[in-house]
């Protein structure tokens, strides 16, 4: 019996490799878990048919477009959209393309078949319009992993949708450095902030998935090749590792009790296996603290919801005239939050001050 609540991706890969289980059995185990528990967890919008092969299943956030699989960002505006492009960060060829310099043999074989067999399950969202739509998507993704409905997942993080749900669901999530993972094919929220990243149950699984998705994609010119391959951590000894904590974030309002204290900088720890902690303040410290962290994502939405929605894909309202069609489509397709973001974004971009604001933003750590 496969216990999907405890099985890590690494262990699943080992079982597959040693032929202790078949790809079909593994798939079936996760399908059963979804059938049993998703009625309560409400994680998935779409569950794919078994594509065959010996890869590991994976849950994919519904903003990450995949060829042939409905991708709607949980929103009515993208109703019925089925991407025709194959996404770089989890295309089957990618696993093979990177075989040129694998770090360990076991990973080579795993990588080979890994992404040919995606569970292709997608977290469902509330209808767009909930206050934290993207974050809820992320939370469902986190619930899918910690609830044993998928061994690992691909999420996206613009302002915390990987990090926060991972923290809340007891998973390991990574928001990769901007430019290390391709954004090609994802439904953008804020293109200069969005990053695709792994959510997993262990640090090693997380690093493993990251090693697969990271790298240069010619379709996303902001990406770069990694200077060196991702190394999977071998032990739990964190000596010598430094962790920086921005003071402003740790002093912000609303931090849960029990979270702030362990994160507070310590000069010297008595336990040898823990990292060194440091803290830093923003350079331009003043009474304004770190406003960039709270607003940077706000005024960005409109370029990412072009009029091509409704005319070329997605939901379209009945109308006899074009302008009316666009407006009516958006009325039917968008909830309050996307409307608000579109309004702020359009306002910001329509102002003559945009250049000045952008220059300031670039000095504020974006």
């Amino acid at each position, binding site marked *: 019996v496969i216990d999907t609540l405890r099985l890590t991706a690494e262990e699943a890969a080992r079982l597959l490799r040693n032929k202790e289980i078949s790809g079909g059995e593994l798939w079936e185990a996760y399908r059963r878990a979804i059938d049993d528990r998703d009625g309560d967890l409400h994680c998935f919008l779409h569950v794919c048919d078994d594509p065959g092969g010996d890869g590991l299943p994976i849950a994919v956030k519904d903003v990450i477009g995949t060829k042939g699989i409905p991708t709607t960002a949980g929103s009515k505006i993208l109703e019925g959209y089925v991407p025709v492009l194959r996404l770089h960060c989890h295309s089957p060829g990618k696993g093979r393309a990177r075989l040129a310099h694998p770090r360990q043999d076991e990973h080579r074989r795993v990588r080979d078949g890994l992404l040919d067999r995606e569970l292709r399950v997608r977290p469902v969202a509330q209808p767009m319009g909930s206050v934290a739509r993207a974050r809820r998507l992320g939370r469902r993704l986190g619930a899918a992993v910690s609830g044993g409905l998928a061994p690992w997942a691909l999420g996206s993080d613009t302002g915390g949708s990987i990090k926060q749900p991972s923290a809340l669901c007891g998973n390991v999530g990574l928001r990769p450095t901007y430019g290390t993972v391709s954004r090609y094919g994802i439904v953008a929220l804020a293109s200069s902030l969005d990053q695709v990243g792994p959510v997993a149950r262990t640090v090693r699984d997380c690093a493993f998935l990251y090693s697969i998705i990271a790298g240069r994609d010619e379709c996303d*010119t902001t990406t770069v090749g990694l200077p060196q391959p991702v190394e999977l951590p071998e032990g739990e000894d964190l000596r010598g590792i430094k962790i920086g904590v921005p003071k402003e974030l740790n002093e912000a309002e609303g931090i849960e009790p029990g979270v702030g204290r362990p994160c507070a900088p310590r000069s010297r720890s008595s336990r040898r296996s823990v990292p060194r902690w440091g803290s830093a303040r923003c350079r*331009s410290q003043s009474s304004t603290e770190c406003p960039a962290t709270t607003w940077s994502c706000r005024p960005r939405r409109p370029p990412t919801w072009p009029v091509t929605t409704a005319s070329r894909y997605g939901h379209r309202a009945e109308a006899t005239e*074009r302008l009316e069609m666009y407006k009516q489509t958006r009325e039917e397709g968008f909830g309050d939050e996307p409307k608000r973001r579109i309004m702020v974004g359009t306002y910001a971009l329509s102002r003559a001050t945009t250049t000045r604001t952008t220059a300031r933003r670039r*000095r504020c750590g974006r």
Partner: protein
Amino acid sequence: MAIDREQLLHVAHLARLELREDEVERLEGQLNDILDAVSKVSELDLSDVPPTSHPLEVVNVWEDDNPRPCLTAEEALANAPEREGDFFKVPPGGAT
């Protein structure tokens, strides 16, 4: 920075959003709150801070100009709500 009702309706038109009366009222307050929060950034002294446009050392990234397959017309049109031959079909113009 403050946004009044007239500007709000203009911006809504630019964004092709049709707002109901209750949405206009709600958004006017919310947008001004957001703009207030954003304006805090102008309080920072940034004179000695160099701008960042990308966290990595990437400048003018170009690909080699090699032809490669792209979407076929059928693929490109696969999601079209309405099509006519090899074209996307939309309702007739009017003022946009």
